[in-house]
């Protein structure tokens, strides 16, 4: 699980080698510049041979979490599972820069340190609309623990916007990791295309969750990629999302109850 990895460490489960091969496959035979033709899936990969900086390694706990999320959302062959009911088609996980500083400021009194966390959101594309964002903590303590305090988010040019926290720390959808919803705080920053944000988290939680919030969290963004290449879910499925009560009601009004499904011919 998110918590089982212990200390944050560099990922060993993915082999990180310099890229090869795709460039030749993805360029038109006439040698024309192809960057405008390739879908984003390939475009980011095809340009960086030679002069590209070495690839950074992901945090191993983050990678484990995302692998489990993948198994929840997709079959072994990679086809999105038809049973899921969310609206997003993209999930991005960012780990903070310099988390050591954050951890070293930990207090034993139960209050979380307020050293700011810096996240680079440069990978979020303009066509990706933020639907939900959460701070993801290692799962320890009671899932329904009440937290109080404040969160402050700021971009490079903004003055910072504080959000009082009086919410519960939720156990994530996949039952791994404690989530603190920060959508309200980040929505304007992400919508404005802010590439780097600083988050000051100053929360205290009951129910044994204090230990969890003292470790630096990761930032999880649930996005809807609106580009042509992204998978768009049929409307009727999206409308069943439990996260969108309005849509849910609309779907219920349109669709017959399960017990009254059309009989087989």
């Amino acid at each position, binding site marked *: 699980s998110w918590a089982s990895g212990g200390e944050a460490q560099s990922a060993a489960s993915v082999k990180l080698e310099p*890229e090869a091969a795709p460039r030749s496959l993805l360029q038109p035979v006439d040698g024309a510049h192809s960057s405008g033709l390739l879908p984003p899936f390939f475009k980011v990969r095809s340009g960086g041979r030679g002069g590209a900086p070495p690839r950074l390694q992901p945090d191993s706990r983050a990678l484990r979490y995302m*692998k489990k999320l993948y198994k929840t959302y997709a079959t072994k062959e990679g086809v*999105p599972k038809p049973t899921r009911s969310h609206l997003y088609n*993209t999930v991005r996980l960012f780990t903070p820069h310099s988390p050591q500083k954050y951890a070293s400021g930990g207090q034993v009194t139960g209050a979380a340190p307020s050293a700011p966390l810096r996240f680079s959101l440069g990978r979020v594309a303009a066509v990706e609309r933020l639907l939900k964002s959460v701070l993801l903590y290692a799962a320890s303590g009671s899932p329904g623990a009440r937290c109080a305090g404040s969160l402050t988010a700021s971009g490079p040019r903004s003055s910072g916007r504080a959000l009082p926290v009086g919410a519960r720390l939720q156990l994530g959808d996949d039952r791994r990791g404690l989530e603190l919803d920060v959508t309200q705080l980040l929505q304007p920053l992400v919508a404005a295309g802010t590439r780097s944000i600083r988050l000051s988290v100053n929360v205290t939680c009951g129910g044994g969750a204090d230990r969890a919030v003292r470790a630096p969290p990761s930032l999880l963004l649930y996005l809807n990629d609106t580009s042509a290449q*992204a998978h768009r879910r049929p409307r009727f499925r999206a409308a069943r999302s439990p996260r969108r009560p309005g849509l849910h009601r609309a779907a219920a009004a349109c669709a017959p109850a399960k017990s009254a499904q059309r009989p087989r011919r």
Partner: protein
Amino acid sequence: GRDAPGPRLPRPPGAAAFNLSEYLRRFLTPRGECELHDFRLSFRQLRWDSWIVAPQRYNPRYCQGRCPRAVRHRYGSPLHTLVQNVISEKLDAAVPAPSCVPAAYDPLSVLTVEPDASIAYKEYDNMIATRCTCR
């Protein structure tokens, strides 16, 4: 009336070995006609496994086979395909006969490690061919 005689139906084997689905498949898609084929690859073969974490294997599938002279209903081909076939056969051989191409696709979920070490789960449309047609 110039249509080639229909395919010879394979004789159903003995009752013990009778496989209805296989029999129907051969009946509906005579050998060599346009149909879906598997092509399983691993991202390691392309050396893309450094940034694609999952899935490890991928079967995009592909369409191959000849398009029958009278394009059958099962291909869902437009009338244009029939006309092009006639042109190719009777008027000008330089006009290509209809091609066997994918008609429908499934999406693919991909988990990638980004250059900045963030991790992204993404669903891409039209990544796995699921049906073929003649166009």
